[in-house]
């Protein structure tokens, strides 16, 4: 048996490793889940059941149902004021994950370097590697609210650099970038003729002001692939439905790969998504309000415990620093799991600039958040007691 070199060389997923450790520990409170705790709004589920009853069980156009693309076009226009033609500028995909893979494959030749702004979602770099490209990490830091600047990007740009992958609102940090912040990326992209792959799946989970997309900036529409989906905004993770928007040439190229691999996104999910975009806004806003309440509680909680937590203005993650405890994020997360049965994901899983932090998803009930904070407080008290004798011995 032979496994391809490219696959063998993919690093094992750090999050997978942590998942294996955490699975099987009973009675845990998990802040480790990167998906909503809400069930998909009933009207969406009901619409999809109805589509089964009506016999909608076939393939759709490779692009996705035209009705859905028209609604996506309107949804994107309402959100970011960019007009994408439903005809050839929007591709419905099997989750944003597929859109990311397609986008990277569509633009990457062997040896092309793609900048990945970190800490980041775990799939970007492996996708670049699988496409034959070279992923290049660009670090961001809590001091700068995990935003990426021109100065962060510049040192990594070579004549092989072809694109930048960004994800704001960000998983795992909860950072957002304003229109003004994004202008720095746009400047770099225009100057060096780079594509920007913008994963905006957390767009609707923006808690101050409205989401800004780099595609809306001057000269960026045709150099940006905007990727978005239904998982977070409408609590539809398991439906696997996303989409990509961009200029026709690039979207058609992505469609070419999609038609030979996925063929089309599942029709049942597309039917549900149509209902979500038509009538699901109130359900979505109710979820966003609830996340926002939990966000305030958890951020406040961490800061009170002395775990400095910059204010995450999007997504559903808090990213407190645990550096003050003297433990590594991996050790902290592991001990917290075994000693207090609380799951948080070590920040270093998302890139080396995530080290010293924990990703804590507040997509869990308010009671769960409060209990988790209480247990973390207990854990920190225990750590302090451990430290005390060591200091004593020194004197």
């Amino acid at each position: 048996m032979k496994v391809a070199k490219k696959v063998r060389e993919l690093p094992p997923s750090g999050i997978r490793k942590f998942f294996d450790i955490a699975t099987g520990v009973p009675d845990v409170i998990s802040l480790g889940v990167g998906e909503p705790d809400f069930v998909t709004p009933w009207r969406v589920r009901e619409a999809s059941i109805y589509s089964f009853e009506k016999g909608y069980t076939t393939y759709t156009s490779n692009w996705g149902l035209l009705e859905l693309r028209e609604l996506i076009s309107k949804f994107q226009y309402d959100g970011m004021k960019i007009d994408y033609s439903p005809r050839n500028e929007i591709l419905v995909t099997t989750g944003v994950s597929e859109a990311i893979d397609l986008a990277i494959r569509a633009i990457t030749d062997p040896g092309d370097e793609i900048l990945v702004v970190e800490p980041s979602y775990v799939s970007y770099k492996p996708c670049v590697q699988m496409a034959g490209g070279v992923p290049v990490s660009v670090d961001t830091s809590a001091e700068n609210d995990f935003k990426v600047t021109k100065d962060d990007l510049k040192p990594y740009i070579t004549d092989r650099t072809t694109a930048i992958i960004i994800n704001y609102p960000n998983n795992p940090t909860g950072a957002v970038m304003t229109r003004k912040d994004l202008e720095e990326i746009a400047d770099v992209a225009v100057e060096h003729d780079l594509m920007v792959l913008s994963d905006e799946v957390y767009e609707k989970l923006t808690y101050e002001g409205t989401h800004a997309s780099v595609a809306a900036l001057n000269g960026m529409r045709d150099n940006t692939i905007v990727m978005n989906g239904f998982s977070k905004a409408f609590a539809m993770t398991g439906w696997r439905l996303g989409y990509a928007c961009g200029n026709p040439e690039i979207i058609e190229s992505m469609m070419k790969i999609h038609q030979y691999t996925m063929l089309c996104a599942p029709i049942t999910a597309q039917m549900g998504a149509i209902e979500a975009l038509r009538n699901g806004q109130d359900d979505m806003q109710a979820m966003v309000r609830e996340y926002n309440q939990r966000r305030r509680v958890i951020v406040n909680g961490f800061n009170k415990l002395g775990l400095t937590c910059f204010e995450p203005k999007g997504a559903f993650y808090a990213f407190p620093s645990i550096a003050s405890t003297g433990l590594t994020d991996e050790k902290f997360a592991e001990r917290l799991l075994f000693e207090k049965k609380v799951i948080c994901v070590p920040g270093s899983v998302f890139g080396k600039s995530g080290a010293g932090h924990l990703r804590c998803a507040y997509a869990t009930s308010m009671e769960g958040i409060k209990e988790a904070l209480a247990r973390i407080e207990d854990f920190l008290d225990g750590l302090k007691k451990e430290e005390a004798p060591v200091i004593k011995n020194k004197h």
Partner: protein
Amino acid sequence: MREVLELLERDARLTPKEIAERTGFDEKDVVNFVREMEIRGIIKRYKTVIDWEKFGDESVYAIIEVQIGLERNAGYNAIAERISKFPEVVTCMLVSGDHDLHLVIKGKTMKEVAFFVAEKIAPLNQVQHTATHFMLRAYKTEGEVMFEKEEDTRLVVHP
């Protein structure tokens, strides 16, 4: 501040401190706002949604459709007020359609509810007709679905 009312509507036991933490408002502002809402009668009272059937209670509920013949110089308010004052009447609303007042009556037995309607509602001068529907089972009350919660089937760690 609407968010404060929404939170209280769902959980009246939240303290001003908790509300302040969730909404980002100042605790003092929350206290003042809630007091003002109470004074202005926007917050009527604080109550609890109870699944009485699960508790084992045998209360009987009935929906009564009442047709009213209006008298000169008196609108629906007078008769509605008169009916509403009975403690057995849990809900009283004016509705469109083929009847006028829509009542929900609570009693200990069907007989008690039936007698209440026969003795106190039907004989009123303005009441022309009543129709009584006994409730057999409640599936959703006050926005609360009376079924078991859907299970959380998520994996414990996920990127």
